[in-house]
Each structure stands twice: as C-alpha cells, then as structure tokens.
C-alpha cells in the first residue's frame, strides 16, 4: 500500500479504518454491480429465476456458506484461542523457575499443566521475595487434586491479586481452608479431601485431612477457574515436608517464609512494582540457578509461530472457498444452458445482450452474497461450538467471535468471486439466439 494511503489510514480511528478496508474489499463487486446493472430492473426476473431453480440455488448457496463458515470459523477460533491464552496469562507478569524449558515452566505455572520441573530452593526464593522491585512474590505447591481438579498451594496475597476481590467469602487464613475456582462445583462451607496426584495418577487421600472452602474466585478465564487454591503450607505439610516456617510459627499462612524451612517451589510468581522493575528482576534472575521468564513473551513467541500457521490457514481457507465457488460457477454455466431458451426469448424480444449478462451475473452474485452471509452466521455458530469444546477441555476461556479480519476476508471473497461470475455471464452473450429459441 502506498505510504500516503497507509499514513491516511493510520490517522483514523480503528473502527473507521476497518470499515474503510471492508468497503475497499467490497468495492470491486459494488463497481461491477453498478456497471452491469445500470439502467436495468432485473429484480422480478432474478426472483423468478431463483424460484424456478430453488433447489439448485439452495444447494449452491449452502456449498458456499459451508466453505465460508469453515474458513471464517477456523480463523476466528485461532484468534480466540490466542486471545484466551493471553488473557489467562495476563496476571502472570514474571515467573521465576529453575533453569529448563520456558514453555514447560509457563504451562505448569500459568496453565496448571502437570509437569515434572525442578524446584527452586529456599534461599533463592528468599532472594526473589526480598528484591526491592518485588511487590508480590508467591510460591506454588503442586501435587494434589480433588475430583480431577488441581489443588494448588500458594499465598493469601496471591489469591487477592489473582481474583481482584473474591466473588464470595474470604481468603484462607489457616492450613485447612481453601478457595474454590469459579468453575468448580464446591461452594463456601463445603469440605473436600485432597487426593495425592491427579487424574489417572491419583493415589488416594492424605488420611483424614480435609479442606473447607471459605471463598470462591470470580471468573478469570484461566485454568485457575477449575482449581482449588489452598495455603502452600498445607500442601507441603500433608506431603511430609517442612511447611515454610520455623518452629515458632504462629500458624498464619502466607509470606514471609523461612528459607531454612522452605521445601522448594517449582515457580515463584512475581508482580514487580513497575514494568522497569519487572525487567530488572528478569535480568537479575536469569542466572545459572534460576530462569526468569515473561509468560507474555513466551506466549507471543508461540503465537508468532502460530501466526505463520494462521497465514497458511487463511490462504487455504480462501483457496477452498474459491474452489467451491468455481465449482458453483461451473454449475451455473451448465444452468445457463438450461436457461438458454428463456435468455434467447429475452434477446428475441429486444433485450440488450447486457441485460442477459446482468441477469446471469446477478443470479450468481445473489447466491454468492447469500452464501457469504449464511457462511458468516455459520462461522459464528461454529466458533461458539468449538470455543465451548476448547474451554471445556483446556479450562482456558475462549470467547471467539467474528472480527474485522473475517469480514475483510469475506468481502474480498465476494469481490473475487463476483469477478469470476462475469465468465458464465459473458458466456450467455455468446449463445446462438435462434437455435436456443427453437430449443
């Protein structure tokens, strides 16, 4: 795009830029339509044609709708997934873990995916917690589950930070209290016994130990909605480890932890005082003993990789749609042969050749536009269904909805295929009138 146009566009509000782009995408079909239909009233004959070929029209429209719906749905879904994963990681500014795979550490800390990662020890954790730029540092303690949902140990401060205010109840204050995620079945006052391990690997309860739910999280759109958050101390205790505090501990859960009695954590979740502070900490804790990562950065690297896939997907979607439309147009060419007597009649009555051209073209474009419109609706439906499935399976809230890029894609598709529809329309002009008239 020339710099001047790009400059002009960049000065506009985003919605106006998107609307303009959609209009530009639709411009070819609008211009062709204006030129082809100028001076004619094809409406009544077009409607007669659609009624006469009702089933053919329905099948052709459905084919276009399905191809567009699948293409648009996939692209919207991919974006929804990207946004969902980014939203889920929003609260996790900086994660400090033992050196290893950044992705594994992120999956474990942010998305609560079971994984075996090394722990960071008490002195290292204390160093992180004491950093002048650290506003909030919380350990994570994994290992238990209830009803296949993870039971994650952490601190009251982390619960307050993650929830931004509980939906119900209060934050845990003792080792036997728990907070239920927004999508868990338990409510305030319910009790549950944690199982060691998770899923198929669950190995049974820790004796008679039970938690009582004292608060419920609001929806965060992350796997934490499906988890129970409990004091890290109790997770460590029930596994026979030190509970993070010295012998003279008063029993109030949460920071500060005593490095001597700190059993280790797979990750320290950090909120720095400022963005600059976060970078300072990230630089300082990228050492041979620790790895500091921004989940947002790791995600965007993953998304960049997905971006390439998205481009391939977009191209494949367009190619599929164009192929379907070419098939439909080929069908239309055959159809125009069936309609040849009627078109010849119009010519014999004195209709200009351009009238038959306009009639055939507008018939094709009606199917294309109807197919595109239905395809968008189908795309919305598909994304809702797939989003629901992904949300249920990954616990990452995916709320995919159609965006401007899909509308631009469909706009370009309509224009491109409207151009292709000129071919069958042109073929009607070359047919022999007398022979067609005699059938």
């Amino acid at each position, binding site marked *: 795009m020339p710099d001047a146009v790009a400059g002009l566009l960049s000065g506009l509000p985003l919605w106006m830029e998107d609307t303009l782009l959609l209009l530009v995408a639709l411009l070819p079909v609008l211009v062709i339509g204006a030129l082809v239909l100028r*001076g*004619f*009233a*094809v409406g*009544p*004959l077009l*409607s*007669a*044609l659609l*009624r*006469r070929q009702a089933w053919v029209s329905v099948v052709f429209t459905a084919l276009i709708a399905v191809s567009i719906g699948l293409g648009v749905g996939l692209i919207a879904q991919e974006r929804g997934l990207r946004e969902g994963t980014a939203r889920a990681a929003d609260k996790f500014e900086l994660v400090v873990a033992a050196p290893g795979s950044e992705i594994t550490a992120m999956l474990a800390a942010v998305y609560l995916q079971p994984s075996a990662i090394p722990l960071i020890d008490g002195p290292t954790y204390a160093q992180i917690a004491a950093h002048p730029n650290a506003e909030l540092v919380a350990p994570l303690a994994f290992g238990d589950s209830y009803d296949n949902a993870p039971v994650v140990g952490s601190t009251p401060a982390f619960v307050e930070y993650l929830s931004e205010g509980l939906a119900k109840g209060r934050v845990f204050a003792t080792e036997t209290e728990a907070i239920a995620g927004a999508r868990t079945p338990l409510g305030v006052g319910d009790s549950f016994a944690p199982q060691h391990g998770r899923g198929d690997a669950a190995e049974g309860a820790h004796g008679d130990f039970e938690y009582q739910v004292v608060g419920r999280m609001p929806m965060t759109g992350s796997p934490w909605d499906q988890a129970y958050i409990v004091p890290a101390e109790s997770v460590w205790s029930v596994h026979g480890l030190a509970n993070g505090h010295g012998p003279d501990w008063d029993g109030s859960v949460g920071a500060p932890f005593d490095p001597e009695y700190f059993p280790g954590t797979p990750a320290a979740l950090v909120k720095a005082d400022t963005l600059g502070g976060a970078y300072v900490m990230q630089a300082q804790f990228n050492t041979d003993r620790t790895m500091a990562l921004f989940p947002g950065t790791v995600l965007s690297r993953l998304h960049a990789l997905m971006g390439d896939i998205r481009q391939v997907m977009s191209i494949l979607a367009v190619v599929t749609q164009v192929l379907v439309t070419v098939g439909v147009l080929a069908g239309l060419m055959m159809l125009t042969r069936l309609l040849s*007597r*009627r078109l010849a*009649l*119009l*010519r*014999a*009555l*004195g*209709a*200009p*050749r351009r*009238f038959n051209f306009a009639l055939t073209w507008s018939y094709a474009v009606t199917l294309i536009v109807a197919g595109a419109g239905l395809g968008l609706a189908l795309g919305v439906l598909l994304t809702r269904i797939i989003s629901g499935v992904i949300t249920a399976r990954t616990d990452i809230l995916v709320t995919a909805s159609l965006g401007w890029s899909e509308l631009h894609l469909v706009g370009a598709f309509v224009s491109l295929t409207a151009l292709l529809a000129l071919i069958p329309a042109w073929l009607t002009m070359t047919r022999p*009138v*007398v022979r067609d*008239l005699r059938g």
Partner: protein
Amino acid sequence: MTGIALAISGLEVRGQGGRRILSAPHLEVPAGAAVAVRGPSGAGKSTLLYAMAGIIAPAQGRIVWGDTDIAGRDDRGRAAFRRESVGFIFQEHLLFEELSALGNAAITALYAPRRDRRRIRDNAEGLLTRLGLGESATRRSDTFSGGERQRIAVVRALAGDAPVILADEPTASLDRPNADALADDLMRLARDDGRTLIAVSHDPALHDRADHVIDVVDGRVETPEVQHA
C-alpha cells in the same frame, strides 16, 4: 401510433455451411397493413420473420423498416430496433411461469428506459383488461389455459407500443375456438392502433383476416397477393 412500412430487396439468408435457406428478391408491406405469411413447413417462413425482426443477420440484401435498414446494423443495433419498434409473438407462448400475467406482459419494461417503464406497465394492464384477463393479472402465468397464455404473449408484444407486430404461428398451439378468438384479437388490436402486422401461419382463419398474403415456397418469397382493399 402509426405502423411503419417494410421494403425488402435482394435478401438472402444463409444457413450453416453457407447454404442459402431463404431469398426474397423484392417485398414491400405498406405501413399499417396486416400480412399473413404462408407456405409449407420448412419453406423458410420463420426464417423470413426472424430476418425481418433482425434476430437473424442476412448474408446480403436490405431490410428497410421506414427509413431504417436493419440489415446494415450489427447485432446490438438490430436488438435496439427490435426493442423500440417490434413486438414479437411466438408459436409457443414462451412465458416466464414464475411471473404473473402482468409481470410477463410488461416484461420489456425491465430493460426499457426508466421513463418508459410506467407507460409499458399501464399499457399491459389496459390490454390485459381488454382481452378479459384484467381480473387475474396478478396470478402466476402457469395457472392460465393455453389460449389465455397466448393472449398474455400478445399483450407482451403490444405493451411497448411497437409499431410493428411480428407473429410466428400464433394460433398453432390453440384449439379452433381459441385460435379464432386470438386471430380476431390480434387483428383488432393491430388495426385499432394502425400497427403493421406480419404473421407467419398455416391457419386459414388468419389468412382470411389479413390484408395481404405472402407465400414462401422452397426458401423463396413470392410476391404478395392482395386480399382486402
């Protein structure tokens, strides 16, 4: 409205492979005349009519309607002439079944200049009423009988105020009473408005009602015979 005269000279129409299928050395039809064209099947009657309408381009010769030689025009020019000056009636009514009687009768309005569309529609409505179809003008055309459908086709040919009506076997697909009624309607409507009517037909009823009868024999147009003063 006044019909226009036709003067044909040295007309030759060739078919596939350049074979001559029709010749008309000399033919004149006065403005406002009602002419029947007769001849055996395959003699070239319809070809003559199609050439007169400009649907077929002749290999040589002149087809002059008033001052306009349509043989010298290209396809677009001949279609424009048809649009402005010719109403065509086919052997089979050839209606768009999904459209109403009025929709078919006023179909030429769809590609006529915007200023003429209202007039064509009003004419079609008036003519349908004159032919007894005014009450059911909004009914789908495929719900009408054969005779009624052909009357709708006649209205379609007349609604645009064309000074020339060309009809190809307009009564061939009708039973006797309907054929007679249609022949009467066609002649009356053409004469009332002073249009030039040329009808290809095997039907003696139509020949009897015409001012002139032209014979086409073995692809050659004979000199017309005058029937009525």
